[in-house]
């Protein structure tokens, strides 16, 4: 199987869906002529032309609202946010209009929009550019939230997202864009809402998603080698809908849980997970549910310190040891 980057995987998904459905349009700041701020959309303008690959002014509320309106008439806009951090200036369009229009119309209106872009810390860009809003987004019934960790997942999930009839928010990661992974040449899709056990183990389950999957897998190797601890890593891949069954099955096997997330701790995705695990697998637990999150402060700039504010393999190892102590 060819190895391609996470960035290329997303680009291939876009290109395939643009080819498949003439109603798909890619829109955002610098997506066309500039080839994308993170080069995800590189080459798409040349291939699909300016009607399909559209550069926008710096008007997130304006162009995302426009995408919502267009989607009501059957367009399938894939909107790029240069950073998901900028969702705050388009919050009303994303979470009042896209998330609510189906409901408030009594099911008369579909809103098949995808909003995608990177949402991560770890790049020393300070608090304004390091938000991870998957918890905020997933709080809104009516929307779907996807956070892929690998090239394979990113491609298959994005294709499902574009075909979905509801708003899907797709949160990528600038640090993963260059990571290579095996991606088949033949077409495939991955259904939303399906977790993936990225590593099997018997002593403890790490429930995680996004870049923290990569950290957790590294930590699991260290734990295996240096501590003889066998960790299972469950990658949620999709936050909403949520594949809690895969999580619970793993908990029933290992009886110990650590949630690892690049989230501020208060009312995070992990908060919801912990509630559901204790509610639905209480008798299977041999100890309290543990969690490793971002250190609770706005994202610090200072490069060496930011690494320690976020989950990282070293912090995961410590958290697992603490959970099993």
């Amino acid at each position, binding site marked *: 199987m060819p190895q391609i980057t996470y960035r290329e995987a997303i680009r291939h998904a876009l290109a395939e869906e643009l080819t498949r459905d003439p109603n798909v349009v890619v829109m955002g700041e610098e997506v066309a002529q500039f080839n994308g701020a993170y080069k995800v959309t590189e080459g798409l303008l040349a291939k699909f032309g300016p009607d399909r690959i559209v550069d926008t002014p710096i008007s997130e509320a304006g162009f995302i609202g*426009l995408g919502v309106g267009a989607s009501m008439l059957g367009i399938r806009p894939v909107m790029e946010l240069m950073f998901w951090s900028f969702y705050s200036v388009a919050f009303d369009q994303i979470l009042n209009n896209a998330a609510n229009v189906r409901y408030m119309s009594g099911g008369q209106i579909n809103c098949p929009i995808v909003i995608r872009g990177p949402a991560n810390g770890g790049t020393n860009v300070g608090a304004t550019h390091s938000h991870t809003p998957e918890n905020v987004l997933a709080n809104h019934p009516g929307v779907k939230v996807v956070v892929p960790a690998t090239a394979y997942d990113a491609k298959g999930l994005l294709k499902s997202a574009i075909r979905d009839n509801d708003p899907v928010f797709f949160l990528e990661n600038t640090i993963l864009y260059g990571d290579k992974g095996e991606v088949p040449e033949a077409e495939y899709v991955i259904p939303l809402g399906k977790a993936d056990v990225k590593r099997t183990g018997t002593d403890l389950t790490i429930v995680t998603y996004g870049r923290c999957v990569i950290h957790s897998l590294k930590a699991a190797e260290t734990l295996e080698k240096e501590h003889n601890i066998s960790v299972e890593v469950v990658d949620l891949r999709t936050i909403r809908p949520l594949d809690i069954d895969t999580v619970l099955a793993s908990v029933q096997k290992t009886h110990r849980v650590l949630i690892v997330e690049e989230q501020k701790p208060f009312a995070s995705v992990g908060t919801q997970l912990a509630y559901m695990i204790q509610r639905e697998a209480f008798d299977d637990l041999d100890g309290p549910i543990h969690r490793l999150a971002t250190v609770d402060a706005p994202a610090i700039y200072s490069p060496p310190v930011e690494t320690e504010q976020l989950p990282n393999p070293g912090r995961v190892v410590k958290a697992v040891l603490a959970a099993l102590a």
Partner: protein
Amino acid sequence: MSKKPSAPAAKKVESAVPASDYALTPINASLSREQKIELYRTMVRIRRFEERSLRAYQGKNAAGGTNIGGFLHLYIGQEAVAVGCCSLMGKNDHVITAYRDHGHAIAVGMDTKPLMAELYGKITGCSKGKGGSMHYFSPDKNFWGGHGIVGGQIPLGTGLAYALKYQGKKGAAMAFMGDGAVNQGAVHEAYNLASLWNLPVVFVIENNGYSMGTSQARSSAGELAKRAAGYNMDWGQCNGHDVFEVRAVMDHFLTQAREHSRPSTVEIDTYRYRGHSVADPDNTYRTKAEVEEYRNNKDPIQVALHQLLAAGVFTAEIAEQIDAEARTEAEIAAEFADASPYPTVDDIQKDVYWESDHPAERKSEGRLFFD
């Protein structure tokens, strides 16, 4: 690419005909007698519907409970705007507006029974009791709401125009907003996109002089529609008390949109007689005399009545009959609403996701809902 705008400079479009002769402009002169009467009838139907809804709001149901909850923003006094504009709609023309949406909903042809039922929060409502007064929708009538956040619908309206253009359909979107909405940033982002991309949208500012209790003078610097010029869009102003004038002026801008895919902004002067919503005691920011002045001299229904009587289009008897029918229609709508059932608690989680509403076609897995 150059730094200079390539499109010709925006202009204020002055009306081509003298103020007294709007009925003679081709778009009005070509109307049949029945069509003229229909304009009048639609305005009267809106007025009687809303008056009836106000009585329902203030009254109690048989169980002693409220008929209508929350906000009720009445359009009374503004009817010529929605009726004039929507009467110009062709099959590829679309409408979106804010929360003061009853007039537009009736003007695009929605049945008043489900509209009243929606106010009552009944399952037979146009949004199954899920939207309420501010959130009427009817995609089958090209009516896309009904939006509660001031100015938030304007990017959506621009998106409707984008879709029309993308799909190669010759049509226009009308995106309505109040005079207060022009101060929202999203409106300005939408203006820029519409003009930059040559989208077929007409932004309609219904200037009723107030945003809640704040007068235009206390909220907005400069002329409202003129802001469009900053985005290189043509703009115009019009008297919204005369349905024929609204049609004549809007016809020009809609044609610009449909034929040349150019957006524009039209400010229509109008007035609401009732408070901002039923909750507004309406005694702090304007005088009774001002309201009476409009009611007595500029009421759109009275203006149309006099025009149509003077032109011999109909008689006073027919006008009275139209009024009686509109009252009956509103009463029937209220009876329908009253007799209809509420949604059930099970209905709360319907219409949230397309996939949960179409379980056989669902492709995703996992839990969509949480408890």
